[in-house]
């Protein structure tokens, strides 16, 4: 299958102004400003095939959004080569933008004070979408995302979930081949997240839209992505499928236990038979037990705890992106 995105040895450096505090530094800050170089993306290379759904994951400040900004032709890399549709996205920004859709979880492209449908109509004009296509797409996507009745509402009166769904429709109004999603599920409830994920999967299945997704939600990655690229400090740590990264690097799962009374870690000595177990106090009555799920099952630990302590509640915590990265590092 053809490569729709290619990036080779890309590096992006931000120059940031370091302001020194204190009265004596007021003049110094103006005359001799101190700048510091910060490497946001370093020696990044990967390619993405048409129809892929790629999860581009990493902790805050890892360089995810910077990569999206370079891929969309907004930022110029300091070195390296980027090709989107076989062209330099910076040079061909205007042309490439007709074929890409972008959703930023924290930046809406809809106008705040006017109904969403009017923003969509403006985009229709800018992207030169024929009237019949526009009508079909709005109707179809609004139906799928269940926002038909909200399209005439000013954006300021919408909930975050409704706004995000409308933003997704706005990004798809010109029928793009690539969809860049920068933390699209941030702050959304479980039901809305599920609907968005189903919608993205449907879009990928029916229209072969390539999806490049950044997220902090492991559920997004598990339910959507057939490939993950893991980055930290601007560098790539892993590129492959999610199962392999888990298989290869993840040995632990988190078991959160709430007791009826306060226990010290020493009082849980009976768990010493379980090898490779980490116990951490979260508060008076809550403990986090990290266990190696490859060596034993959670039921073994829970039954041992129920036998020896007064357990009020327990839950298995989802794997966080940060945990995955910690393990990979």
């Amino acid at each position, binding site marked *: 299958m053809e490569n729709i995105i290619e990036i080779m040895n890309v590096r992006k450096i931000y120059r940031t102004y370091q302001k020194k505090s204190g009265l004596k530094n007021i003049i110094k800050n103006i005359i001799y400003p101190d700048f510091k170089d910060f490497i946001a993306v370093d020696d990044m290379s990967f390619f993405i095939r048409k129809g892929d759904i790629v999860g581009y994951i990493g902790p805050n400040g890892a360089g995810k959004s910077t990569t999206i900004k370079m891929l969309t032709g*907004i930022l110029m890399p300091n070195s390296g080569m980027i090709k989107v549709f076989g062209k330099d996205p910076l040079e061909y920004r205007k042309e490439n933008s007709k074929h890409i859709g972008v959703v*930023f979880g924290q930046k809406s492209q809809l106008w705040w004070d*006017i109904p969403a449908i009017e923003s969509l109509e403006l985009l229709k004009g*800018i992207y030169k979408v024929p009237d019949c296509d526009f009508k079909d797409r709005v109707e179809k996507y609004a139906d799928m995302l269940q926002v038909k009745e909200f399209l005439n509402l000013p954006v300021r009166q919408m909930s975050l979930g409704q706004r995000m769904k409308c933003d997704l429709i706005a990004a798809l109004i010109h029928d793009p081949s690539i969809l860049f999603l920068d933390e699209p599920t941030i702050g959304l409830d479980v039901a809305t997240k599920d609907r968005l994920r189903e919608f993205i999967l449907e879009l990928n299945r029916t229209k072969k839209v390539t999806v490049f997704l950044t997220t902090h939600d492991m559920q997004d990655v598990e339910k959507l992505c057939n490939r993950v690229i893991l980055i930290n400090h601007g560098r790539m740590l892993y590129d492959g499928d999610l199962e392999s990264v888990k298989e290869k690097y993840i040995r632990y799962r988190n078991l959160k236990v709430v007791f009826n009374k306060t226990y010290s870690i020493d009082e849980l000595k009976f768990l010493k038979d379980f090898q490779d177990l980490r116990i951490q106090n979260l508060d008076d009555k809550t403990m986090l037990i990290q266990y190696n799920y490859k060596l034993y099952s959670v039921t073994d630990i829970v039954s041992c705890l129920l036998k020896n302590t007064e357990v009020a509640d327990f839950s298995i915590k989802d794997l966080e992106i940060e945990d995955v990265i910690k393990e990979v590092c």
Partner: protein
Amino acid sequence: MYRVLCAYLKQQYSSLTAYKSAFCMTLVNVFIRIYAYAMLWMTLYKQNASLFGNIDLNQMLLYSIFSISLSQAFTWWDGPHIYVEENIKNGRIICDLLKPMELKTQLFLRTLSSTVVNLCIFTIPSFLISTCFFKLELNVNIIGALITFVLGFLLLFSMNYILSLICFLSLDLEGYLYIFHALIAFCSGQVVPLWFYPDFLLGIINWLPFKYVFYEPLLLFIRNGNLCQTVCFQVIWIFILSLIGRFMWKCVSKKIVVQGG
């Protein structure tokens, strides 16, 4: 392009009238300013009419009233540069840059739509009501004024666009805005007609583009200007500023910073 302009017009109309009380208060503010300036000029005329040379009270009031009404259409204090500054600060400028249309074209269509909407809902009604209220004789050069006002709008947009591009480098326009707004207010003849200024100051102002935004078009409006000369200077200034804008965009587009993750 026509379809986009229509969509922008609709969007700007909805935005400007989204908050009904704010819209009403803006209209009230225009009338208060018109009334205050009209009273000021009427008092000065009563004191010493010779100060105004060959400009009679009727022309003076037409100049002043239309200047205030027109500035509400041009909204030079809240132009595309303010929109760009806000969007650069909150990082939303990326949404504009990702559209298959040059940023300048988007800003131009947005500003043009906002000016047309303001013209219809503020400028024309406030001017007509005020001329009736002060019983003014509408002895004006509509054609000449129309041509030079359109060129004045293009000239103002060219200046605002350069300020927008400066914002990409400075990330904040506060200091620049103080200077720019002072220059527009005092060198364009929008507040005080330039014939009151001393010769040495006029000598400087004549070398600047600001007077071609308000002063010269308003002079033509009250049948006192020179159409050919004004149009020539306006076109020259628009050409020079457009070249500067084009050169700046080439430099700026490689140094764009989008704030926030």
